[in-house]
């Protein structure tokens, strides 16, 4: 059971303002990236600037939320979801910079996914009252008051971010390969080989952090409960996701698999990841029911 924290009206105002502004600018950035993809090429750089502004606003929200809850805000679906979206955008912006801003079209697939996640946190609970995403400011339960929680959750948000980027690249690959070269959607997309490389890098990045997440979770469980592994559904789904990406990475890395088979594995991995985050919380019960 978690208890509520009294938040000052000013603190609440800034938290909500940053969040709402971040939402609006994320949406705007998404529209600009999509416009770039559909032919308005000059909007690519503009979309990137807007996304950077959105990211700063989202950072502002996370900082004010942290001040309001007096801890790092990543407990519960709402806080975790926000951190996850924030990490996804951060990793995407980093790849944009690393690749010397050659592939703005990738943003047209990553930002809608970020919007999808934000939609789950904001719109879905309004449409389906059974899905409750609490935005309440709560204290940490004693069992969660452990530094390993910070490492565990930080690793998971970056792991999920990597898998999201890999999934975005997988969708692009499917479109690129299955639609005509001069199609409105595909003509601005990177080459299929570049997309496969992008997908591979995203999956590898996610896999590293997913591994750190599982290990630190095990260490934390050992300290709190006296055992590393409890076969809890959330633990198992994290492991299942790890298995799927392990198969993908081995298949590509060692067997040289490319094309549809690897795309399928990355997509299945993403579905497993989303189920670990969303599905386990609503459909399965276990020790991780705190978020």
């Amino acid at each position, binding site marked *: 059971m978690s208890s509520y924290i009294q938040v000052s009206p000013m603190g609440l105002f800034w938290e909500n303002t940053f969040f709402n502004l971040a939402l609006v600018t994320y949406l705007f950035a998404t529209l600009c990236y999509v416009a770039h993809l559909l032919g308005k090429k000059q909007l690519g750089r503009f979309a990137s600037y807007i996304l950077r502004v959105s990211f700063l606003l989202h950072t502002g929200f996370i900082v004010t939320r942290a001040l309001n809850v007096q801890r790092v805000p990543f407990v519960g679906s709402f806080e975790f979801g926000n951190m996850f979206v924030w990490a996804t955008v951060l990793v995407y912006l980093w790849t944009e910079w690393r690749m010397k801003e050659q592939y703005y079209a990738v943003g047209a697939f990553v930002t809608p996914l970020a919007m999808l996640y934000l939609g789950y946190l904001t719109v879905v609970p309004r449409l389906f009252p059974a899905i409750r995403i609490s935005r309440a400011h709560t204290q940490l339960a004693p069992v969660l008051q452990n530094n390993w929680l910070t490492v565990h959750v930080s690793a998971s948000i970056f792991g999920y971010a990597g898998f999201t980027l890999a999934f975005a690249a997988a969708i692009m690959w499917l479109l690129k390969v299955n639609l005509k070269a001069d199609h409105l959607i595909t003509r601005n997309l990177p080459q299929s080989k570049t997309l496969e*490389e992008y997908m591979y890098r995203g999956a590898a990045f996610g896999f590293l952090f997913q591994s750190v997440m599982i290990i630190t979770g095990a260490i934390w469980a050992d300290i709190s409960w006296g055992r590393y592994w409890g076969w809890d559904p959330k633990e198992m789904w994290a492991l299942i996701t790890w298995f799927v990406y392990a*198969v993908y990475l081995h298949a590509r890395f060692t067997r040289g698999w490319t094309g549809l088979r690897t795309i399928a594995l990355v997509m299945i991995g993403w579905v497993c990841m989303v189920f670990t985050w969303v599905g*386990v919380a609503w459909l399965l019960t276990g020790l991780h029911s705190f978020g």
Partner: protein
Amino acid sequence: MTKETPKTAVKSPLQQLLNFLSSMQLGIILLLLLAVISVFATLKENETAITSIYHSWWYLGMMAFTALNLLLCTARRIKPVTKLAFHPHKLTSPAALRQMPHHYELKMEKVTAEAALAQAEAAFKKNGLQVEVTAGQQGRVLFAERGKIGYFGSLVTHLSLLVILLGAMYGSLTGFEARNGGLAGDHFHVEQGDFRVDIKDVKMEQEADPTVRPRVFSELVITRDDQPLSEGTVAINQPLRFNGNTIYHTTFRYVSDVVATDLATGKEQQLKLWDIDQLQLDEEGKVILHVMQFFPNFSMHGGGVPYSKNYLPENPVLAGLLIENNKAVRNVFLILNEPEVIKTSTGEIELLMTGFENAAVFTITRNLGRPILFTGAVLLILGLYLSFFTFPRRFWAVFAQESNSLIIGGRSRNRLLLEQELEQINQEISKGGEARV
């Protein structure tokens, strides 16, 4: 040069079996199978899944089979990976470089081969590459590389998984898990570890918000044959570790002090009642008080369901169910210091709750595999980092006399990085002013 006739070696059945057991295909199939079975297992109730699937011989057997595959696969890869890392093909030819998917050919008509290769060498070095010059049949060849250690990433990763499995196996074979607890002043003996635990004190600390489950701190002294082994405080996230053993706080209980008085004879009985205890109230055993739950701050929902408003001990009540002749008769609520009289066939019994204490419940484990597991975990992160974030890359440069051009080719798993680095090398050479693509 004479061509060698390819040998059609017939592999022995043992060799074929080893090849199968160490094959990547088998590894992939096993991982996918484990994933699919685990998906179905999570759909079952957790305790059922643990007993019927996760701890079943075939699931554990499959895990062991995967470990064997990993072990053999790792052993088989040591030699080729070492060869790849330390004995690269340093020689190449213009034709071979032109075959590479990533190569540049730079026309350099006004410079000699030596000067062109010197420019390439400078460009390689500027990009942080280690350069070697080798004399080949078709002139000198520049060989440059970086990130050699990355070749060992998959080996380290696989090895780390084996270390983790080894640690887990060693821990479970040499260790134990027990559960025990008690009130302040109690003690218990842990047979598997052959030590005694004395509970000196059990202290409850309320959180700032009393609706949050309070923390319980237990002062413990551990001895063996009256010789002290360890002592310390155990609480949530604060286990006590000694000699490979660990004592964890698992939960706490309320234990009620109840005085049962036979009103006919005046005979008193001092009792300590835990939740789910059964108290026999008559000689025949037909009247039983089944202790249900202790509520520190008792209240009742509209529908008559008892609950505790919070953890503050403001209205302590022990709730029970009176059972006569195996039938539930009524609820009994023992309020602190308020007597409750229960009629039996042989007389009347007065029950009085005079106080309550907190008991702590501990999980006691021994896991000697922990240091091995930690080593494996660190190796795993290192291995994954080497696999995916250190990109071994190799470049070659030769001067083709027939076309007066410098050809530079490169290989790396990271195609994007390779393209970028080749571009940088190209730009660096082009600064000399003689080169053009």
